[in-house]
């Protein structure tokens, strides 16, 4: 039944999409505030995946226990990278910031490879499943979905309801003006970068619940590319735009797979990837503010 297959895939797409959304929010936050595209975004997700693996295999805890650890490690990494590297690149030409962030990603990949090895590794976390009329959903994915939604709400509240969040929003609007009004612009940059990296590393914990083949140090590259598409879809500068764009992306990716599989003689998986990049280009050309954030 194609209808049931499509419904099942769309359900899984929505659940995965929420995780994609959270995995992209950091990219959008950092671009929005610092105007730097983090081309080494995916490797930070990979770090989160390895934090989970290390905690599950070494300490024997359940994967959700890795969430606070991943967040803290991510924030610490963010501050370290900000004060050593990013601080000097905020007004540098794209060439410099793109190359530096890519090199940061390579550095993380190589450190992880030399400490964990390059082969695929994984763990199992079986906590039952929910049987829906059209599909079966493992509880671990339901958990990842719920966690992602909570993280998105949390970031929204932090961004809109706290002093620090307000300060950062003023920096996004007009960094000179914010400085004149007494906002510590440098600190805002540092906090945004650290929080952005923190959320990204944390999203790696959720993503490991979706990867049946396991994780390896070079898994990040694919997520960098997906995150670009999602971020552009969400307007590139808006973290919660990125979250909703993640949901849309998950639906498109999983839904189109079912439809492409109907065409004989093609590779449906590659075509879903092709479709996402077509969407990327169309959005960039006709609506660079994104599907959702179109205020200006």
């Amino acid at each position, binding site marked *: 039944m194609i209808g049931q297959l499509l419904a099942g895939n769309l359900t899984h797409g929505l659940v995965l999409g929420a995780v994609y959304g959270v995995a992209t929010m950091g990219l959008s936050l950092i671009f929005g505030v610092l105007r730097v595209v983090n081309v080494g975004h995916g490797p930070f997700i990979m770090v989160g995946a390895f934090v989970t693996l290390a905690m599950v295999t070494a300490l024997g805890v359940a994967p959700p226990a890795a969430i606070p650890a991943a967040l803290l490690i991510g924030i610490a990494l963010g501050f370290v990278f900000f004060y050593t590297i990013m601080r000097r*690149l905020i007004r540098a030409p794209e060439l410099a910031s793109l190359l530096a962030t890519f090199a940061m990603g390579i550095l993380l990949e*190589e450190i992880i490879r030399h400490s964990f090895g390059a082969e695929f590794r994984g763990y199992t976390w079986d906590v039952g499943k929910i049987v829906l009329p059209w599909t079966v959903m493992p509880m671990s994915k339901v958990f990842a979905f719920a966690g992602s939604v909570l993280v998105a709400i949390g970031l929204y509240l932090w961004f809109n309801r706290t002093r620090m969040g307000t300060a950062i929003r003023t920096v996004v609007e007009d960094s000179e003006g914010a400085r004149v009004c007494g906002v510590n612009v440098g600190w805002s940059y540092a906090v945004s970068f650290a929080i952005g990296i923190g959320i990204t590393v944390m999203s790696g914990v959720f993503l490991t619940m979706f990867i049946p083949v396991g994780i390896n140090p070079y898994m990040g590259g694919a997520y960098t590319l997906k995150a670009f598409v999602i971020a*552009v879809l969400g307007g590139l500068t808006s973290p919660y735009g990125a979250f909703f764009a993640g949901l849309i992306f998950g639906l498109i990716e999983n839904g189109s797979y079912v439809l492409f599989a109907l065409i004989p003689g093609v590779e449906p998986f590659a*075509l879903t990837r092709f479709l996402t990049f077509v969407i990327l280009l169309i959005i*960039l050309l006709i609506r660079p503010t994104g599907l959702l954030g179109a205020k200006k």
Partner: protein
Amino acid sequence: MRLKIEKYYPLLPVYAAYLVMFLIGRTMPGMWQMVALLAFYCAIGQAFNIFLGMTGYVDFGYVAFLAMGTYGMALGITAFHQTGLGIGIMFIGLLLGVVMAALLSLAVGAVALRLRGAYFAIATIGVNEGFRYFVEGARIWGGSEGIIFYGDMTEAFGAETTRLLSTVWADVAVFIIAAMAAFVTIHYMRGKIGYALTALREDEDAAKVMGINVTKYKIIAFITSASFAGMIGAMAWALKLTYVFPPDVFEIHYTIECIIIVLLGGAGTLLGPIVGALIYGLSKYWLAVIAPGFQLLIFAPIIIVIVVAFPEGIMGLVKRRAKGTGWERYII
């Protein structure tokens, strides 16, 4: 009209460097492979520099043009190998590769060059990846299996010629392409295009207001740069490897290597890409010998330090030092 030969003086150190490299490769046993690798880096550095160095636009999907060249050669050889045209087939393949690269750059340029900065970089990554998945997904040009054309090559050229082509003549061609790219670079730099693009790089809006047709010059630089990439793909990848495999030819790391070479040597300078290519190529080769498996771990922090500490690159520094001395006319 008097030919202004002085404007080509800076080519002298470039060609001297190529000649020395070529002679080392031909006379010292066992050196040809390394020299060929260095020539490849010099060539892609110079080709990439024509666009990136002159405009300041970062094309993150540059490797797609090399891929077009590789596919062009592969398709040319597989389509014409039974026609008995001999070595002419290679020129058909080369032409096909260049035309495909130029057409892709025209298409990308027409749409993506309206975007600036980070948006342009992301769009070009999108084109590179999108094209790769289109080839794989729609199963054109051999799909994800790629094209293996060693058999067709031996049928078209004969076994001995094929061996010579892929071990010697492909590399010689890369030298010639690198020399041509250097000539075009200086020709552009010292001509109207160079001045227009300098204005654009400094302030695109101001340049536009001053009446410079920025789009036209951007596209000229883009197509030139892409066409050279197509030639390099056709000769250095297709003829040397005798196969095309989509995940290899669209691999983003080659774009990164181009960026490293140009940035290391100095973006927008003539000698920069060569200096960058030599340093990058030699250190990569050397690290592979003394610390196999650790090259990237060592490279990544070095790249970061260079980006942060020397954003003008080595030739940027040298150029400033040479100002006002007799060397000035040879170094740009």
